[in-house]
């Protein structure tokens, strides 16, 4: 790893900087190199789609950017902070403050209502109960689900569940949203609504968004598309 190198900006306004990042997984005795020395940057306020065939390393890259996993070598800087050097506890703390996550299958807590799910990340803050409820109401308002606050996930449609997941990702006001196939489980119309919502969050709220998708139509909502194949960046499409 080149951790001893001084931190540098690939772009002055970068939200995400990835430099020479390699990721190797061990499966039994086998070592599989999923990412091969990737270097790129995502400017603050960008909306980037990561595309590529299955096994190309999209989700692995997303996990590294979101601080869910550590690279085998290389540097990752997000919002000006090197995250490849953080311990598990430091990463957890960092994620709570800086990143919102949206998953393909929503991953809501079935035992909690929509507002309970959205409030979950705020339990890690020092906000009072009243402040938390206010923030939750705002987040649900943004995703258009204020009237569904008391409903449990099983009482919501797929699109509504994903909106709740987006509200949960938004509620602690992170600058970076990472979304793994956020429309993979939705029909076209609902998918477009969700992508439109992400677009609004990018344009009007200034969130930097990185989504992984197989769907070229979904990628059209992004400002840029990064293509990955066999762990390498192929091209950048505007």
């Amino acid at each position: 790893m080149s951790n001893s190198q001084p931190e540098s900006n690939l772009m002055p306004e970068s939200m995400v900087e990835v430099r020479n990042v390699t990721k190797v997984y061990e499966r039994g005795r086998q070592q599989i190199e999923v990412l091969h020395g990737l270097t790129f940057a995502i400017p603050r306020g960008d909306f980037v789609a990561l595309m590529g065939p299955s096994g190309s390393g999209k989700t692995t890259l997303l996990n590294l950017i979101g601080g869910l996993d550590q690279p085998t070598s290389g540097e990752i800087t997000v919002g000006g902070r090197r995250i490849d050097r953080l311990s598990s506890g430091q990463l957890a703390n960092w994620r709570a403050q800086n990143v919102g996550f949206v998953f393909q299958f929503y991953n809501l807590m079935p035992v909690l209502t929509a507002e309970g799910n959205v409030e979950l990340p705020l339990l890690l803050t020092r906000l009072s109960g009243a402040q938390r409820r206010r923030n939750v109401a705002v987040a649900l308002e943004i995703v258009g689900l204020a009237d569904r606050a008391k409903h449990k996930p099983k009482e919501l449609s797929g699109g509504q569940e994903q909106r709740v997941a987006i509200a949960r990702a938004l509620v602690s006001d992170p600058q970076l949203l990472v979304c793994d196939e956020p429309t993979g489980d939705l029909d076209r119309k609902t998918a477009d609504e969700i992508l439109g919502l992400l677009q609004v969050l990018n344009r009007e709220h200034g969130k930097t968004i990185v989504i992984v998708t197989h769907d070229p139509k979904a990628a059209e909502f992004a400002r840029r598309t990064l293509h990955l194949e066999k762990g390498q960046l192929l091209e950048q499409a505007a």
Partner: protein
Amino acid sequence: MTRSGFVIANLFRRRTRTVLTLLSVIMAFLLFGLLQSVNTIFNAGADFVGATRLFVQARVSFTSPLPISMLPRLESIPGVARVAYQTWFGGVWQENTPLIMFSLDPQRYRDVYPEWVMPESQWQDFIRTRTGMIAGKQLADQYGWKVGQKIPINSNIYPQKNGSKAWIFDLVGIFDGKDDEWKKRTNLAFIQQDYFDEANQFGVKGRENFFILKLSDSNQAAQVARTVDAMFENSPDETKTQTEKDFNISFVRQIGDIGLIVRWILFAVFFTLLLVVGNTMAQSVRERIPELAVLKTLGFSDGSVLGFVLAESFVLCLGGGLIGLLLASIAGAMVAKGTGGRFQLTVDYRVWLLGIAAIVLMSLAVGLLPGLRARRLKIVDALAGR
């Protein structure tokens, strides 16, 4: 929503399973409370007596009575201030309610047991009345006995000379204890030895189950006991002499080692409970691995996730444990009331403290393994279903 609200919500995600598990915890702690209080009764029953009295019985068994002719020899032993004696009557009230009832010499017994208090006139009536009987306050209250009544009592051992096992005694006194400990033990009755000797069909006149020696100095207990047993060694009536406290304990232990029995039952109960609750917790964690990974994704630390699982097991064990102990307290009080205080099944603070310690240990035992599994899980693998 709070963290504790989240814990409780998770606990009841499968309501039926949680309720059934909770019921098994409640049952286990109900048993724990009752059995521990039984154990307490049997172990602590002798703590209140001092070492100022020695019990002398036949070495073989107290069911082999000793001859009254021993009395003067016992009285002559240095350090012995007074000697009383008593015989088990085997009293049965009405259909088949057994009574703790002895025949004895009233004056001697009074001298040896100043802990029983009764008006002087009633003591005198007991001494004077051959068919007299005195009853402890608890016993008299339970059956509504009043001084002056004739009390019919059967003996399951001794028939009268006319063949009838139904005896009739004149209740001449009701005694109480000098303090709370002794008041709790007023569930027994005494009759006149002379009358019993004359009237019983077996002609066991002049033989007693026990001699009770009141010592002038409790420090001499061991020495006097040795002297008594040596005095009757190699005679037809060899003796076994022990302090009242040891006698009480060994008397109870004729039933068996209650403590050991209770421990084995509780071991079986808690072992089963450990499997039941442990399985519930393990299953509960296993089926929501992705949810736990999401918690970590949102920024909850490994320790927090471990804490959530431990808190769930703690709430489950605490809820069930406290309800179980509460039910045991109520059941114990009902048993004590139903038996007129003869069986003081009290779930006291010692049982509660032990119960709370068991709750904490049980929570750790059932929550730690699944909790550590949750703590160790890698977000990326868990989200990918690996």
